[in-house]
């Protein structure tokens, strides 16, 4: 398929693919088995300038946008989506700063993110606030010269590994979600501790941790934007980041499809490669159709965002829902095509199936996002009337 990528985008895609094949492929099973954070690969990605692609040139980036980010995530995810999310979470963790930060804040933090010297993370979820993100309880009490944080964030990607955290917390608990704000916290700030590292079904090489704040004092300058805007910012950040999850899902699905096709060509049963069986052909064809459709939607949404569109909540949600459902279906079918071998850890496909599940859950569950899309449909209809 011709997606009319620019020269630079093709270069980015080619380089990401090369890193995935040369550096990630040989270690992915081991990283998964050991649940080990892929630091060596993060270093490769950094040295190759891939953390620069989604940041403006003014902050040592390469000036690319959402599509550039998606291309990298997709290529990495094709080989290992745990590595892909560790990379993508840094983008997620820098979006609020990029979008709403002051010039001074951006100059202070973004160049190190661009160079890959620091990873970032974004923390909204809490034990009592998942889909109902407005129910967060972590507070930031205004004191002389700053804020004092108390509370616990849960399930935070890159938790413990990242140096820079964007948190959504309550500066005014009496106002609920309207009292939420976004702040930056650096690793090592006294009173900022890490809780347990989660043991997961999939994306096991990625780090998912609890962040614990016990009278953690941060300077006033760490507030992003204005007080009370936190919840709105979080929603905008997710609108921008969801195509990245869609790209993760597309990469996964493509990787699974490739693996299944290879296997079906060489697996002989009843005297012929199983790819000669109409049932297998049907499955592979359906998988291929869905992967390509998911990719096309994801790129189209990323381009919409890069074109400077204002409201893309529905579109961004569509890409994430469609691509993640595709990844789940395609990886499950890929296991089926491979039969018992697909179920064994000697092959990469069972990992892909385990990895796919999370794409339907984080950055808004698909149930919640379908609700969001429907709400947008209603809103748009009423606006037109």
């Amino acid at each position, binding site marked *: 398929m011709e997606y009319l990528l620019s020269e630079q985008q093709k*270069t*980015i895609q080619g*380089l990401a693919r*090369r890193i995935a094949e040369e*550096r990630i492929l040989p270690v992915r099973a081991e990283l998964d088995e050991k649940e080990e954070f892929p630091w060596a690969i993060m270093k490769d990605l950094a*040295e*190759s300038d891939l953390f620069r*692609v989604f940041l403006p040139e003014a902050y040592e980036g*390469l000036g690319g946008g959402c599509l550039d980010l998606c291309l990298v995530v997709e290529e990495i995810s094709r080989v290992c989506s745990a590595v892909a999310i560790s990379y993508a979470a840094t983008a997620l963790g820098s979006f609020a700063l990029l979008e709403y930060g002051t010039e001074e804040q951006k100059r202070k933090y973004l160049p190190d993110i661009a160079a890959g010297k620091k990873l970032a993370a974004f923390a909204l979820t809490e034990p009592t606030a998942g889909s109902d993100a407005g129910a967060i309880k972590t507070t930031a009490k205004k004191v002389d010269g700053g804020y004092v944080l108390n509370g616990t964030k849960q399930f935070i990607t890159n938790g413990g590994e990242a140096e820079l955290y964007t948190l959504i917390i309550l500066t005014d608990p009496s106002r609920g979600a309207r009292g939420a704000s976004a702040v930056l916290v650096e690793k090592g700030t006294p009173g900022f501790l890490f809780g347990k590292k989660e043991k997961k079904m999939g994306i096991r090489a990625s780090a998912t941790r609890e962040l614990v704040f016990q009278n953690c004092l941060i300077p006033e300058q760490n507030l992003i934007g204005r007080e009370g805007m936190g919840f709105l910012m979080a929603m905008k950040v997710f609108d921008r980041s969801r195509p990245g999850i869609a790209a993760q899902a597309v990469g996964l699905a493509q990787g699974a499809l490739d693996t299944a096709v290879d296997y079906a060509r060489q697996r002989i049963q009843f005297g012929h490669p199983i790819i000669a069986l109409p049932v297998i052909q049907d499955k592979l064809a359906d998988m291929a159709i869905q992967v390509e459709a998911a990719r096309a939607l994801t790129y189209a949404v990323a381009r919409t965002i890069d074109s400077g569109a204002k409201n893309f909540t529905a579109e961004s949600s569509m890409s994430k829902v469609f691509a993640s459902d595709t990844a789940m279906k395609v990886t499950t079918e890929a296991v089926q095509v491979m039969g018992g071998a697909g179920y064994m850890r000697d092959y990469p496909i069972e990992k892909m199936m385990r990895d796919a599940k999370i794409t339907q859950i984080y950055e808004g569950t698909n149930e919640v996002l379908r609700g969001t899309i429907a709400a947008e449909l209603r809103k748009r209809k009423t606006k037109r009337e």
Partner: protein
Amino acid sequence: MNIIVCLKQVPGTTKVSIDPQTNTLVRQGIKNIVNPFDTYALEEGVRIKEKHGGKVTAISMGPPQAEEMLREAISTGADEAILLSDRSFAGADTLATSYTLARAINKIKEDNLVICGRQTIDGDTGQVGPELAEMLGIPFIAYVSRIEEINNGRIRVQRLVEDGHEIIESTLPAVITVVKEINTPRLPSLRGMSKAKSAVITTWTAQEIGADKEMVGLSGSATRVIKIFFPQRVRHGEMLQGSPESQAASLIDKLRQAKLI
């Protein structure tokens, strides 16, 4: 610290076939790559530069297509690249190659350290490094696996020998060849690639390096390839007959006879 790294473009596969008429490798349709051992040389050069400052110049003798490889060298950290290309260079053996490289390196003058890979994967001789040092009249250390120190015009390295390591110190300038244990070469960077795209690759001809026509290419080569061939592989298979027990027994006998067990 000025570092010169010698690179060669080689066929990107070991599955090349030999043209029975000309006795040369069939290179058509085969993607060229940088000789893998040379990537370690380049990486080490770039690391030394990053630590001690200076400049890395990548240099290659080869056809015009080798320019592509030199651009890749720039994308992985070389500052400059020079291609030695001239029809008269064609058909060079290691002697003529090192003569040509030495002429070019003499022209650059400001070199402190010349780094080569231990050998190429096509010619496999491992001779160019030492010959080059000889022609430049400077010390040579082969199979370097670690650079321990570079200081006050001296270099101390660890080198791989058959039964262990040797620590060797030498004055600079010098030529070293490196083994793959020395580092993990980096991948290109996006910034490096964009620099490489617009970089000017200097090309020097035989005349520009003041080379004696009789010493380069085929005419400067002391050796001639008379024939390249795949060794004949003759396999004798034998099917054992009889019951599984007697087959196993006669297999054991045969393995004993062959002194394999």
